[in-house]
């Protein structure tokens, strides 16, 4: 199988900066996976995301999308394969109304109007925003705007969906809505999802977690593998999932809890076997 994303030795330093934002980053991502790239603010994870669709050109290294090398010639075709939902709900809303915004990408790619109409409708239905088609962005909540942004991405039928801290400015309700949408998109199996986040609960949903700091990939693995290394997460500016905090606490208190990472459900089961009154 051709990896959907392959980057080799990416290095990049911003103009006014002395420290590189990315240093020799190499990654391979298989299609259909949900990848979480985690790291604190300024760890280089957003720079990496913007490199995947050529918004930033690497100073050295190569990006392959679906087997194709990203170059000045291929960049527009590649942008069609990658949809990005950005952090700020407001500043990526181009259209004057919800439907207009969803259509924006298709307009750019010259999709005929007759084809656009059903695609806009389908995308809005997919994110549950059909009732808002004619609304102006000023009247939507942050979470709703992000769902519209996601609809705009879906309408373009991309292979990869990148969520670049798309939930970080939302309230709990908005975050919950966007995360459950991501979960349902994963189930369709049509997309590779890359979520760039510092929310550890969001990362827990991924198939693979890539931890970044100082522009480098520190480690990668399944959430269970990564989360079991609580100390390392903290060292790199992240929190430890609650179930892991509790497990560590119990270990220290002398309880013979499992010696590896457990999610909340597994932890409860494991603890029940240790229940003293049983």
């Amino acid at each position, binding site marked *: 199988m051709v990896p959907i994303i392959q980057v080799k030795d990416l290095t990049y330093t911003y103009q006014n900066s002395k420290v590189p934002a990315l240093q020799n980053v190499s990654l391979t991502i298989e299609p259909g996976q949900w990848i979480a790239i985690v790291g604190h603010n300024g760890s280089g994870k957003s720079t990496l995301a913007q490199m995947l669709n050529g918004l930033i050109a690497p100073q050295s290294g190569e990006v392959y999308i679906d087997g194709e090398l990203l170059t000045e010639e291929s960049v527009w075709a590649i942008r069609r394969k990658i949809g990005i939902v950005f952090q700020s709900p407001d500043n990526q809303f181009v259209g004057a109304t919800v439907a207009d915004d969803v259509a924006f990408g298709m307009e750019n790619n010259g999709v005929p109007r007759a084809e656009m109409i059903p695609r*806009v409708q389908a995308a809005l239905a997919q994110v549950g925003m059909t009732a808002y088609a004619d609304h102006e962005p000023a009247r939507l909540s942050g979470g709703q705007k992000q769902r519209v942004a996601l609809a705009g991405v879906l309408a373009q039928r991309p292979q990869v969906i990148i969520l670049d801290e798309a939930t970080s400015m939302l309230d709990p309700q908005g975050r919950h809505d966007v995360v459950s949408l991501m979960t349902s998109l994963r189930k369709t199996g049509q997309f590779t999802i890359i979520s760039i986040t510092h929310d550890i609960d969001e990362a827990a949903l991924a198939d693979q977690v890539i931890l970044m700091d100082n522009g480098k990939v520190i480690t990668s693995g399944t959430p269970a593998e990564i989360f079991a290394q609580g100390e390392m997460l903290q060292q790199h500016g992240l929190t430890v999932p609650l179930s892991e905090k509790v497990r560590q606490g119990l270990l220290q208190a002398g309880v013979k809890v499992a010696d590896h990472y457990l999610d909340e459900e597994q932890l409860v089961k494991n603890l029940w076997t240790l229940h003293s009154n049983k």
Partner: protein
Amino acid sequence: MNKLIFGRYYPGNSFVHRLDPRLKLILNILFIVLIFFAQHWPSYVILGAVVVVSVWASGIYLSFFLRGLRPMLWLILFTVGLQLFFTSGQHVYWQWGWLSLSREGLINAGYIAARFLLIIFMSTLLTLTTQPLEIADGLEYLISPLRVIKFPVNEVALMLSIALRFVPKLMDETTKIMNAQRARGVDFNNGSLLKRAKALLPLLIPLMMSSIDIASDLTTAMISRGYRDGEGRTRYRILKWQMRDSWVLGAFVVISTGMLVLERMM
């Protein structure tokens, strides 16, 4: 500021609301041209009737139109005053130095006032019944022949629509920054003119910075979604010319021809 930009569109579904924005734009221009052909009072009666009927058909209260008049009031009074006192004529009613009140002056002033009122009512009707976005769409269509001289019609139209889209956002931002600076002891409402002008700096600089942020985020998002330039783009939003638009245009042509004929006869 709110009154100038918002409060302008009056949501509704009247006959006038549903007319094609292109038609409304064209009629506004034609109406203004027509006004300058009107030299006699019967023409003003006809034009006045057109305005009255249009306002009635829009289903909007007269008070909204009067509100539109308010910012222009001083300009109107000034111009009318000029006409009133500086027109020389034979029938002088009153004179003081080089100020004189003549019959011709009165008539001229009356015509000027009528022209102002007609134009303001008609353009207010356009903005009250047409969403800013529709106006932008209409304008884009009307300037599209300029493409021949390489005028970037699509880009300008997109710029206009994005600008409109971000007006409410910038308004919010303005309120927010004003509040933040008031909480830091800035007084936007009191003090000398100089003091108030200085108080604008803590508002304008953050506003500028945030506009730059918005612009840069927006550019990134647009490029990611495949925006290059106007070439090869298709359009989702289109304008549809309806039967009623043709009827209204026809009626207007008939009325204006009638008025022009009447003018020739007098």
